[in-house]
């Protein structure tokens, strides 16, 4: 296996749900994820950003094997996960979920929650598992006393540490973090992010980091993909996307970051607040009804994700036009 092999590769992944509206009305398709191709090389962190309902979490569920893609393929370490068994898949990819209050079973002790993956995979004797759980708890910064505690006795940050310990105990190739800090207090968010960054460099983890907090993504991710209505609209190295976003939606997202200065008020993203109905997406570019740069072509033809300038890719006719104007042939 070469080092060039991406740990996670998505090939034109589509997820359609059919939404029923009662027994007699015909079902309508809902495109949650509409053809996403991404890859994450070993040791890198791909930040996935976008507003609520854009398909980020559905994408995460497909990578975890909790949902099957309608079309396309998800490959982890070069192997299509559709062909992997339940246990094999679990060894490759593990999740850290958003809400540490619902991701830990309230009736189990911390030790049995963190040790569950080992028990399921039948690894080691009970005593060996106990030592590995203790090591894992120490690694995520919990004290051995916490092992016998129940989730209700821990704070939100401590619970999220438990969730991280559970995800890492099988030593997975890929970690899926689905908004791991958005349910936490701001002060605790920083602790969890530092822990994740620390583990990242220490264990050489590859991860997919989903968030709607751009500052968080900027801190952790090596590359960023911006999603809108089930599609990736821009993808590139973090520094480049953060500084020179090409897609108007990415720029809107960047402009939406709140500033600590109350006099500035709420930032104006120039995007309006109307999120399109995913049951009836607009024709052409799905973003055109909200786009400040919209022109005729956007209403007819859906743009494709391609490189216009620099090292990133964007799906935008305006970006293509501007790039062509800047560099005369």
């Amino acid at each position, binding site marked *: 296996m070469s080092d060039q092999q991406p740990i996670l590769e998505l090939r034109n992944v589509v997820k359609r749900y059919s939404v029923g509206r009662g027994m007699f009305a015909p079902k309508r398709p809902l495109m949650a994820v509409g053809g996403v191709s991404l890859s994450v090389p070993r040791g890198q962190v791909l930040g996935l950003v976008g507003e609520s309902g854009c398909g980020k979490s559905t994408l995460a*569920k497909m990578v*975890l*094997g*909790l949902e099957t893609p309608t079309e396309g393929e998800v490959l982890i370490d070069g192997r299509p996960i559709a062909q992997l068994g*339940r*246990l094999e*898949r*679990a*060894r490759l*990819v*593990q*999740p850290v*979920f*958003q*809400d540490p209050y*619902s*991701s*830990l*079973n*309230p*009736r*189990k*002790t911390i030790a049995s929650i963190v040790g*569950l*993956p080992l028990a*399921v*995979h039948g690894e080691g004797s009970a005593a060996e598992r106990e030592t590995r759980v203790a090591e894992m708890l120490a690694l995520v910064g*919990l*004290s051995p*006393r*916490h092992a*016998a*505690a*129940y989730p209700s*006795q*821990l*704070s939100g940050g*401590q619970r999220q540490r438990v*969730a991280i310990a*559970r995800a890492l105990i*099988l030593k997975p190739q890929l970690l899926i973090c689905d908004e791991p800090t958005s349910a936490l207090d701001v002060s605790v968010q920083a602790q969890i992010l530092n822990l994740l960054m620390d583990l990242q460099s220490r264990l050489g983890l590859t991860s997919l980091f989903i968030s709607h907090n751009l500052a968080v993504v900027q801190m952790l991710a090596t590359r960023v993909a911006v999603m809108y209505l089930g599609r990736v609209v821009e993808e590139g190295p973090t520094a480049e996307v953060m500084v020179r976003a090409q897609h108007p939606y990415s720029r809107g997202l960047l402009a939406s970051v709140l500033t600590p200065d109350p006099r500035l008020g709420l930032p104006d993203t120039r995007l309006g607040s109307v999120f399109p109905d995913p049951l009836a997406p607009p024709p052409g570019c799905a973003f055109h009804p909200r786009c400040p740069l919209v022109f005729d072509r956007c209403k007819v033809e859906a743009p494709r994700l391609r490189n216009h300038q620099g090292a990133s890719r964007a799906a935008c006719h305006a970006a293509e036009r501007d790039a062509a104007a800047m560099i005369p042939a």
Partner: protein
Amino acid sequence: MSDITAPTGPKLRKKRGRILGNSGLIVAATVLGLITLMAIFAPFIAPHDPYAQTLDDRLIPPAFIDAEMADPRYLLGTDNLGRDYLSRLIYGARISLLIGLLTMLVSGVIGTVLGVAAGYFGGRVDTVVSFLITTRLSLPVVMVALAVVAVAGGSLQVVVLVLGLLLWDRFAVVMRSATMQLRNLEYVAAAQSVGCSTPRILVGEILPNLIPALVVVASYEMAQAILLEAALSFLGLGVQPPLPSWGLMVAEAKEVMLFDPWVILLPGLAICVLVLAINMLGDGIRDVTAPEGRS
């Protein structure tokens, strides 16, 4: 990091405090414990053979009803066939508890399996189970029980089977909705991601969180079964004489209740106390195990 309580000692003590602070639970547990002990050790406790008829000693009242007529050999008097009433009440507890427990087990297993399956798998399974629940709810329990017992003949086994096959609906409804809520929680998704098999998730992650609801429904259904057995026996379609069922004793007493009302009062009171104790115990256990669910 240091704000958590050391897990075992204080937690247990807290739980003990919650149990002792719940007076309803303590009273109910004591009453139920006494009735259960009484039922188990009936042959050693009962002063007389509950079936032995002494026709010379018919309808002797207990001392607290009529001190002059009372006979010290019969603490709670005798019925109209001269059988010792206390012994019959003690043996009657056996029948009530047996029917209550067995019915609860049969209906609990059926209802929980159906409800959890419907709630967890959803879709077609849910449609089928929901249809079964609706069908079951459209049948009046007493009427179906009467019809079946009339055809199959009344006996302890038939009563348990009929009630067990009729009283699972509440289990199914409650377990279904509770499971639906749990299924969408992230710890179920986490268990799936970790590689847990579906049975393992159902038993290891879902079921432990259903226990508080299960206890409440089970206690309610057990009380319900005991009441229904009494009702069926009262109508002559449940447990058959000469077995000392409390319901049957009420039925036998109704002929003489005009002049000797205590004959009907005692078994009626026994049924009332047992049912009350079971319901209070269920509520108490719910409060202690899941304080967050207290309303």
